[in-house]
Structures are given as C-alpha cells and as structure tokens.
C-alpha cells in the first residue's frame, strides 16, 4: 500500500548505521560512564548521535529504522518533526455502507464478508500504516487519541469497516489540529454517536452516556487538577470533583436532538457527521454546566453544542488531563509534575495566544528536556503489544512472507494474543487505564494492565514467531494473502563478530541503552551458535533482546 522505502536503501543505510554504532558503543563502554547517563555524553560536535536519534524515534514513530536514524541525525529533531507534521496522511478509506445483515451473496469466510463485516481491512490498514506510512508521528498520535476517545469494534455494528473508518479519519485528520476541533468532530462522528448513544438522544429521557464519558474520559477527568497534574486538595486532603450528577444531567440534555445524517440507499449514514433532523427533539431548557456556567433557554441544538463544547474546552483540567496521557503514550508513564506543567502551559497557550494547539503540544512533549534527557530508573513505559510488534518489524525491514513485497498487515492476531485486539478494546475505558500501576511499586504503568502470566508468555512467543519463523501466507484464508516476515540480511555480515553484532542491535533496538551485563549475556548466547549459521546468530541476538524486559520497557 505504501512502499516507502526500497529494500536496497534500507540495506545500505543499515550497514552504515551498524558500523558507526559499534564504534560509539565501544567508546562508551571503554570510558565506563555509568549507563544510561552516557547517552547525552555521546554527542559529537552537536550532531545528534545514532542512539539519541533512535530514542527520539522510539517516542515519535512506530519504531526506529536504520534510514530514519540516519535521517534524524542529518536533519535534527525539530526539522524531523516539521517533516512529520507535513507528511502525507496515510489514514483510512471511506468505504461503501453495507446492510446490517450480510446479504446471502456475502457468505461466511468470503472475501466479501472479510472486507465488509469484519475489522480486517481496518486493522490491516492500521498495521501497514504503522509499518510503512510516512506519517509516523500522526499515526502514533492518532492511535493515542483512539485510546482516549474510544470507539470499540466490540459493540455490535461498530465492527463494520464502513462504519469505523470515518471515526479513524477524524483522529488522523485532527491529530495536529486544535483540541476544540477534535472535540467537535468526534462528538458528531456517527460511530461515536452510536457507541455512546448520542445519536437519537432526545429530550424525553435523555441519555447520559456521552455526557458522562465526554467529561470523565475525553476532556477533564473526575477531579480538579493543578496545571502539573496533581490533584487540588483542601486542608483536610479532600479532592474536588470536577462535576456532579446535575452537570451530567445538564450535558445529557444539551446533547439531545442529534441523529444520523440522511440515510444513503436506506443505509444508516456513518460517513457524514450527525445532524439535527427535528429541532423538537432538542431540550431547549436552561442548563448549568461546568464551573457554574449557565446556558440560556431557547438555544438550538447546534448553539448548545458549541457552547457546551466551549465550556468543556475552556476547563483548566483539559491541559493536564490530556497532556499527561499523551506523554504517557509517547514518552513515559511517570512524567514529573514539572513536565506535565510545561505541557499544560503549551496547551493553554501555544506561544501565539492559541489554546488547544495539539501540534504544539506534541512538539513540546517530544522536545521537552525530560524526554530528551538520559533515562532514569523510573522513566519510560512498557510498550503495548502493537508497539512491540511494530518496533521489531520496522527494525528489520518487514516484508511479506516470501520477502518479495510488503507485509499484508495481518498482525492483529499476534497483538490479540498479547491482550490487545486493535480497535476492539473491551469498553470505553480502553485497552488499559491511564492511572494503572506497576505491580509492587507506587509508579504508574498503564500498559501493565495488559501484562499478565498469559500475555507475558505470549509476548515471547510472538517474538519467536517473527524472529525464528514467519507468518505464512494463505494459512488463514482469506485473511493473510501475503503474510509477514523479517529480513535480517543486513546484520548477517556482522555475525562473525558477536560483539559488533550485539552493539549494532543495541543501537537500533535499544537506543544504545543495553547494560554491560545484558550485553555480555547476549554475546555469550550468540557465540554458542555455530559461526557458519549467520542467520541463527542474528536471530538469537534479536530474540534475546526483543523478549527482554529491558527492551519491552522503552526508556
């Protein structure tokens, strides 16, 4: 779909990186700086090091590649971000609407059924976007937004691709727009309208679902926060709820009157934004919203909606609430209060007096000194299953099973085995809670919500499949037309030198943060493989790194 990089180019760049990285890493070990503080010392004349570039790409893309590392070294962080903001959008196609019940000429296990009644085309497009798309940062941010503004394919009728891609188009196109624009577009998206019951919400028995979740999950959260994300407390230590049931009731009434756009060929319209078909369905009474702001009686549904979303958007909680989550998705589960505060400040004012500029927020998150400084024992985050797959796949020139073309992107089964069914989180509370903890610690670790005895082993076994085998084509017809494989040929020339091999992999996979004892353990295992079997040597090293907690906690 997006053959962005020619294999030849990757190969050439790959070798260049390998040699350079080996040199730098050896130097760092010889001078025996206590790792990982060494990274910031590895600069040469202001040029970004390969390790720094790799770490930046861990946070801003679906995984560093050899050529992107070189590129970031060439242009620097800021220029790379500008390129990413302007990169053509991969996004998702608008598909023809289909009847709720599959017609008889669209039987089970057919391509018709696969493409119109399962999330297959959406999930595979998602993976090919992450693997090959140029707009890496947009895709990464949009997926973070999906985990905040959740619509799940689990719900009956959402799993239809034609109903789902317009929702993803909103996330993609608004990822770098203003938060207020995103809030408006997502509120009127038809899939969201169905999922949280704003569609056909009427003044008789208004439905509270969207009202509650837009406040609790999409914008301000439950409790008053300081700009640094800490909770506001009184002298007794009590927190202050951001809203009560009366405010939820008011927003439930505010969101009345909306329904789907006119049907197309008798099919419910999930493509266009919702609209007001009958003004009489809107509750025109006065409404008291957040912070005691009152809307007058007699407003139209559209006027109420604009005022209501402004009321939410202007709430001081939005900056720390959304900012912290974006930091958690991109950089670290445990940002310092100062880091959150700096992002809140940018959310509140991008420097030009604009509130809610998501492009400025994302830029600030990635260029923040805490994101760029050397990692600490508390920093980083456990990668979620999708990121585990894409980081590995992108590092090793992911191809179709026979190596001749692109992967078909049918990687959701692997992600699902690790507990993350893409676009089908169990509920509006997403795949894991942003406030989830690290077991046995007081730290936050949202992604640990997906890690348990079952998925921990699945992580190792997915790595085993990708590294030592491949996902063959055609075994799950019609779902995997071309399969997926990794290409280790760029590293096989290094197999005769286990130290050099491991150092090169360290630079690419772990942004040079591998500890000396981990390095020597991997080298020992690589050396145990017969030197004539260069592929198995590389695979052994990659397997050990990719299954390690040191790699899966991205720091």
């Amino acid at each position, binding site marked *: 779909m997006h053959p962005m990089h020619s294999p030849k180019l990757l190969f050439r760049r790959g070798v260049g990186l390998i040699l350079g990285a080996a040199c730098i890493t050896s130097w760092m070990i010889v001078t025996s700086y206590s790792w990982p503080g060494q990274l910031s010392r590895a600069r040469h004349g202001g040029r970004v090091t390969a390790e720094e570039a790799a770490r930046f790409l861990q946070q801003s893309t679906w995984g560093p590649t050899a050529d992107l590392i070189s590129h970031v070294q060439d242009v620097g962080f800021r220029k790379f971000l500008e390129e990413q903001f302007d990169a053509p959008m991969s996004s998702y196609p608008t598909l023809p609407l289909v009847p709720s019940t599959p017609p008889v000429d669209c039987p089970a296990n057919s391509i018709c059924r696969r493409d119109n009644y399962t999330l297959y085309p959406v999930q595979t497009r998602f993976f090919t976007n992450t693997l090959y798309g140029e707009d890496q940062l947009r895709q990464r941010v949009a997926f973070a937004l999906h985990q905040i503004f959740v619509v799940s394919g689990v719900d009956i009728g959402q799993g239809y691709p034609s109903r789902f891609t317009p929702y993803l188009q909103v996330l993609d196109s608004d990822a770098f727009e203003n938060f207020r624009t995103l809030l408006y577009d997502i509120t009127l998206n038809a899939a969201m309208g169905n999922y949280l019951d704003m569609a056909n919400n009427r003044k008789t*028995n208004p439905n509270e*679902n969207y009202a509650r979740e837009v406040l609790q999950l999409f914008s301000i959260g439950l409790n008053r926060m300081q700009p640094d994300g800490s909770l506001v407390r009184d002298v007794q230590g009590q927190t202050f709820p951001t809203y009560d049931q009366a405010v939820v009731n008011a927003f439930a009434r505010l969101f009345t009157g909306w329904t789907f756009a006119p049907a197309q060929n008798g099919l419910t319209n999930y493509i266009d934004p919702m609209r007001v078909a009958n003004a009489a369905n809107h509750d025109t009474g006065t409404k008291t919203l957040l912070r005691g702001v009152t809307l007058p009686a007699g407003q139209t549904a559209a006027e109420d909606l604009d005022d209501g979303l402004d009321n939410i958007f202007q709430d001081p909680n939005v900056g720390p609430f959304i900012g912290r989550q974006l930091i958690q998705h991109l950089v670290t589960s445990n940002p310092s209060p100062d880091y959150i505060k700096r992002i809140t400040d940018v959310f509140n004012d991008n420097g030009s007096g604009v509130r809610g500029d998501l492009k400025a927020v994302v830029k600030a998150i990635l260029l923040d000194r805490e994101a760029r400084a050397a990692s600490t024992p508390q920093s*980083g985050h456990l990668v979620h299953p999708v990121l585990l797959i894409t980081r590995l796949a992108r590092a090793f020139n992911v191809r179709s099973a026979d190596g001749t073309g692109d992967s078909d992107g049918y990687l959701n089964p692997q992600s699902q085995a690790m507990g993350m069914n893409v676009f089908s989180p169990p*509920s509006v509370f997403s795949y894991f*809670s942003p406030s989830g903890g690290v077991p046995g610690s007081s730290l936050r670790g949202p992604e*640990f919500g997906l890690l348990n*005895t079952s998925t921990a*082993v699945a992580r190792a076994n997915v790595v085993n499949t990708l590294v030592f085998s491949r996902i063959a084509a055609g075994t799950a017809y019609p779902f995997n037309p071309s399969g997926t494989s990794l290409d280790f040929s760029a590293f096989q020339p290094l197999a005769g030198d286990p130290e050099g091999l491991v150092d090169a992999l360290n630079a690419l996979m772990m942004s040079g943060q591998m500890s000396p004892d981990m390095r020597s353990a991997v080298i020992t295992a690589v050396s145990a493989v017969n030197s004539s079997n260069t592929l198995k040597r590389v695979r052994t090293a990659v397997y050990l790194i990719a299954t390690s907690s040191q790699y899966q906690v991205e720091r």
Partner: protein
Amino acid sequence: MTLSRREFLRRSGCSALSVGALTSGIDRFGLVQAFAQGNSYRALVCIFLAGGNDGNNMLVPLDAAGYAAYAAARNAAGLAIAQGSLLPIKPKSIGTEFGLHPSLAAVHPFFTDGKLAIVTNVGPLIQPLSKQDYLSGAPRPYQLFSHADQISQWQTSISTGASGTGWGGRVADVLGVNPSGYPLITALAGGIFTRGQLTSPLTVAPAPTALNRLLLLSGFGTAADEQARLTAMNYLRTIGRDSPLVAAASNVTQQALDIAKAFDVDPVVNTVFPNTTLGNQLKQVAKLMKFNLGSGARALTRQIFFCSLGGFDTHQGQVNTQATLLTQVGNAMKAFYDATVELGIESQVVTFTLSDFGRTLQPAGSAGTVGSDHAWGNHHLVMGASVMGGDLYGVSGPSGTVFPTLQLGGPDDTDTRGRWIPTTSVDQYAATLARWFGVDEININTVFPQLRNFSTRDLRFMI
C-alpha cells in the same frame, strides 16, 4: 490495609519469585504442608457482568401491585417483560411471588431446589444511607454511576476512593501467600478483584486451551545453542532491576514460566459446557479445580476464580441484548454446577455475580432501541449446594422487605429515574462469602475495612 513499600517487599512473594524461583524450581505446586492442611477444599467463583446488568429486569415482582408498579415505569417505552413470561419463584421469607428473567431458565430450578439465592438491592456504600441521608449530603461512594469507579468499588469493596487492591486479592492475602508462586487466585479475565497487596493472580486462557498447553514458551529445542539462549533469557530477567518497570515485567514472566512447569497434564471434565465466552471460562475453572484436586497433599485448599462477561451496558437495544447475555449466564452457571457435582465438590464451591451497577428503572429511549442508564443498587445471584437458596437476602429497606420500592422518585430512589439507594452494602455481601471461605472475624475487618460501619455483618445466605 496499607503496607509500607518496604513491608510489602519483605512480605511479598514477588521478591522471592524474581530470583529464588529461578534456582529453586518447583515440583508441581510445591506447597508447604501447612498450606494443604486444615479445612477441606473451598472455592469462590466470581462472575463479573461487565457494563452493569439491569437487575430490574432480572428479578421482577409478580404480585399484582408489584408488577403494576414495575410495568408503570417500563411498559410504555417497551422495556417491561410480560408478566406471563417471567419465571415464577417464591422466596421463603417474603409472602409474594417474584419472577426471574425468562432467559435464566437454566438456573430457575435451582432457586426452588434451594441452591440459588438472590441478594437484592446491594451496592457500594460507605455507611447505611437513607434517602434523607443521601439528599442531605451524607457520605456516599466516590463517583456514583461511573463505570470505572463503580466496577472498582464492587471489586475492591472500598467506596471512599480508588483502591489498589481487590477484595478477592485481599482474601487471598490473609489466607497466606503460597511459597511456590502458584497463587490462590486465578483470573480468566481482567479485573482489580484479583489483585492483593501480596497476591497477584495467575492469568490463564479459557477453554479450549489445554492446561498443559498454557503458558508454554515456544522455540526452544535441546540443541546446545538453544539451551544457551534459554539460559541467557532466564538470566536477563534477573538484571536491570533498578527500573521498577523492568523488574515488574520480569516478575510476571517468571511467575508464568514457573507455573507452566506445574501444569503437566490436561484433566478431562465430562460435563458439556456451552461454547460461549462464559462457558469456556467456567469450563477452564472446572478443569483447574480438577487439576488441583489431583495434586494430592500439595493441592490448594482454597481457590478463587474470576470470570467476566461483557456487553451489559444496555443504554440501547436492551431487550435482545440482555436476553442473549442472561441466556449465556444461566446456561454456563448450570453447566458449571453440574461439573462441580461431577467433581464431587458442589458443596465446596460457590458461584456469585458482581456487576458495575444496576440500571435506571426509568427507560432510556423507547421502542426498538429502548435501554436504561447507569444506576446503583442491584440484584445478584449466588449459587451452590452450600447456598441457603430459595430466598432473597439483604438488609430490609423502606419497603419493609429486602426488595426496593419500584417507584420513580420513591423512597429508594436517588432522584426521579429509579436509581436504588442500596440497603445492603458490597461489604456485607462480600464478607458473607469470605467468612464461608474461611476468613476469620479479625481478618474480615482487615479485608473489608468498611464492614464495621454496618450492624449486620453476615447476610446468612451461606450454610
């Protein structure tokens, strides 16, 4: 309840697991004898009905006045179940008849047979709360009507704020951490219910995954280079532990690999289970029970299981959705009970439901799309041969019985939509189960710190 971090680490099985288990190895469960001695086997099996099951349609009054009140609130919008299709039951302690949702046909006979009880109008509370108390601002649970918070309160039995541990996990904590690393708690689904201060659950896939296929690491042969790779992989879990995130991730993997060694057979349970989400979870529970019972002196004497079925958040389309889901619940519970009979432990196992919250008696929307919204007090099923079935349980409320008054704006309603203020707390419900399970009175107060606020400490639905 709060242990210092140091205390936690000292007492935790995790620190031992991380390094000790690497070298010690475990044989089968490797249990200390003290653990296996004492009372005979007992198990708690929790079924979480995720999304908020509408108890108002699960248990409906059948007497003329009661049904009329129910129908008055729900019939016009199309949410009332026809009187004639409800499955009649006669609770022993109440003079009037009630009806179960018609989709619970599979478990209906258990009520009459005295093996199914229903705890009514139960929900999170901090202290007993009358409508007057509620309206005058008396302490009430944190973030009522919100999914995430109410799920947490049902699963943690802490209503004053967020809790890092669930009540299942804390029950397991006070019964002692198994030194082998094989936890008392097994999770077939995610939820904070299973997490304790000292206990983290074994998480396994549901049936049809065979027990001896659970948690197996693939890709290692006997060749020297592959064993060298395995040695290195094992070593990597012991280093880099200055990062709490790295250490925690390594601990989970280590626990999984230790336990995988113990699962050396795949026991057969002959009872036929429905091939559904919940059916497959409960089938795996039955197999895990059989496996444990076959472990001789090393068998666990206490086990807790957590299962979950989603889809109950029926803001819309409730009529069909809830019917489908309750059919699945009833059929799976029936099969599971039959399996405990097959294993000869039907008196030693109790199955019970939890859910986010009840739903508004007043419908949301109408006709084909009718549903209901988030509410509070709800009704729950408790099943097993040691259950004093055939009755409704709880603390009597304004109606004079344990069943709420089905009246919008009435004495049990928080507002005008039919959100019942619970007359029985989650603490009382859970403590009754925990006491039967073997938690003594001192530890009950530790596990359920809010229980002291309620005069009734046991709802008496367990034998």
